[in-house]
């Protein structure tokens, strides 16, 4: 993690930005506590919590026993009693044991008690494929959580957004699932001011403006999406590129305005096709933009298949070429 002399500015990767945000939250708010498997001495298997136990002590950065349901249950209990737990699930593929606590309790505490209690917890989990990891280490199941009322699901796609969104997630009075696209954990460095300032959790980020077609994505697939936009630009095709970032509750207005403008939309998602977040966005566009659409909204997605083991993983992943092909079809469409 590069740091400029005498300043609070860093050149950081996404995972380092996560680390900075956690460090900042631990410093600023005594109620913030991190918990999870291997987050202490080891600093997390991806080093997201590196150095934090050393600096804040084992009571603020807690290595838990190996039990995801317990990690989530502890977090719910802590959150109801005035703490701000930030739990790590080591890989999103292991979050399912915690599903009941998240869905039945974290997401409902406020509604169930009509606001008497609330549940300001954050659950962080690295997710997505592309790192040739063993089974269960590469899934993208964000859609399962996006369907749950009461939960916020936030996915950064750059170091600065990781920093800002994570700080906001920790400050947020609602439970937040914060999914970190591990494929781009170390892909790029960005200049980041450790200002303690959050980014809004209720808005998409328009990363590129264009008039021909709207490309919508989130997480690691933003990388291929931006690449596709870049390459299409060489052929004079101007893509508007939207990073959804908070996939639930969804800032649909930004997407709608863009599509009403461009008349064309491609939604890119790494998750399996059937029932993904892309489907929701497409359905809303169908309801609200039918008159503006100049071609069918297309989804570029993973297959309706379990994430393959490493040898065949690349076959599964949506690629830049797929996005470009879809965009071209869309543009020829009408």
């Amino acid at each position: 993690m590069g740091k400029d002399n005498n300043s609070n500015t860093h050149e950081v990767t996404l995972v380092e930005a996560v680390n900075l945000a956690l460090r900042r939250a631990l410093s600023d708010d005594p109620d913030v506590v991190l918990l999870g498997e291997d987050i202490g001495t080891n600093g997390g298997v991806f080093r997201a919590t590196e150095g934090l136990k050393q600096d804040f002590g084992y009571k603020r950065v807690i290595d838990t026993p190996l039990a995801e349901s317990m990690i989530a249950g502890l977090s719910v209990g802590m959150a109801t009693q005035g703490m701000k737990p930030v739990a790590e699930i080591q890989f999103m593929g292991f979050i399912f044991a915690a599903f009941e606590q998240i869905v039945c309790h974290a997401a409902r505490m406020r509604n169930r008690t009509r606001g008497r209690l609330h549940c300001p917890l954050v659950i962080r989990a690295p997710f997505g494929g592309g790192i040739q990891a063993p089974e269960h280490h590469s899934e993208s199941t964000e859609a399962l959580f996006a369907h749950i009322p009461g939960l916020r699901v936030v996915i950064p796609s750059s170091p600065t957004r990781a920093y800002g969104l994570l700080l906001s997630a920790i400050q947020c009075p609602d439970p937040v699932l914060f999914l970190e696209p591990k494929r781009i954990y170390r892909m790029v460095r960005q200049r980041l001011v450790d200002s303690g300032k959050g980014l809004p959790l209720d808005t998409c980020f328009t990363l590129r403006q264009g008039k021909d077609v709207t490309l919508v994505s989130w997480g690691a697939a933003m990388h291929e999406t931006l690449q596709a936009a870049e390459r299409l630009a060489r052929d004079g095709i101007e893509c508007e590129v939207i990073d959804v970032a908070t996939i639930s509750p969804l800032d649909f207005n930004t997407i709608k305005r863009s599509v009403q403008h461009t008349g064309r939309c491609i939604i890119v998602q790494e998750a399996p096709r059937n029932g993904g977040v892309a489907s929701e966005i497409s359905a809303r566009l169908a309801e609200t933009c039918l008159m503006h659409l100049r071609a069918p909204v297309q989804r570029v997605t993973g297959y309706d298949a379990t994430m393959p083991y490493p040898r065949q993983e690349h076959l599964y992943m949506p690629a830049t070429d797929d996005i470009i092909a879809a965009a071209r079809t869309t543009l020829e469409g009408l």
Partner: protein
Amino acid sequence: MSTPVPSSIEKPRYVAPPPLVYIEPSGKSNRDLPAQIDFDWLRQAYQHMSLIRALDKKAVALQRTGQMRTYPSCLGQEAVGIGTGMAMMDADVYVPYYRDQATLYLRGVQLKQILQLWGGDERGHLFDGAAKKDLPICVPIATQLTQAAGAAVALKSKGVKGAVVTSCGDGATSRGDFYEALNVAGLWQLPLVTVINNNQWAISVPRQMQSGTPTLAQKAVAAGIEGIQVDGNDVVAVFDAVNHALQKARSGKGPTLIEAITYRLGDHTTADDATRYRSASEVSDAWQREPIKRLQTWLHDHDAWDATREQSLHGEIKQQIERAVADYLAIEPAPVDDILRYQYADMTPALEQQRTWLLQRHGG
């Protein structure tokens, strides 16, 4: 290598005392009561249990006449709830399950709120008194237990001089959450008291079909913590065990598991018909051990209770219940858009739009 040979492997052993009891089913005490227990305390316990039994009866009656939704009676288990509640202090935190109306009442929850909850109204969870910070009742079995451990982490970490009490049924002990919570509590020496309301049934499944262990208390061994079996129909034994566990917890000496042996004299809930799966004789036997009568006998035998007191108590209880029911029945319907307003701290754009639809359909 497959011919059985007698193994020379030595076996481990678990040895436990019989269940703790002070006042036997007959109403006799077999040993001195704990020092803190005096006549006043016992009369209070008796009054609380009687009130809860009356509330319970009323709630079932309301359900039969369509004024209450599905209700889980705690008939016969009053000593578990009252003994627990009487040992708790305001600084403690309570993490209940659905059959814990007795303790919630002692925590300060209004009788009306209890009725309201089972009347199908989330606002019953607004709670009152010390319960303002207690968790809501928990329906998914055993899931409250790790939350209770989390609450205990919070108390410990914030240096609050209280402990967390949580409870669950015998059926709940079969879920992994039960073990995960005890394990972490033992590991971190959390200020946590877990009370099992072993009422012998999980809906239609008897206790002996939940686990092959002779006791539920011994499950504490898996977490390296103390496990105590008590007669859950003896309010003194329940109090003594919970009080012991709470003092231990509050002074940083770690968690305790308490198995309170009692019996579910009623149906599982008003939606259940227990005659389908258990015998009338089992139930009438169990009535011989119920908690209120035995305490009454003890008090009578010690000249601490009489017919006059009994009569005036019943008058008071009747009044209290009638007032609660009247208050309950007078509750105004919640605003229609309450179903959307508490999903998040703030309304989202989608919810704002849906509120418009909702109000169009169902009025303001």
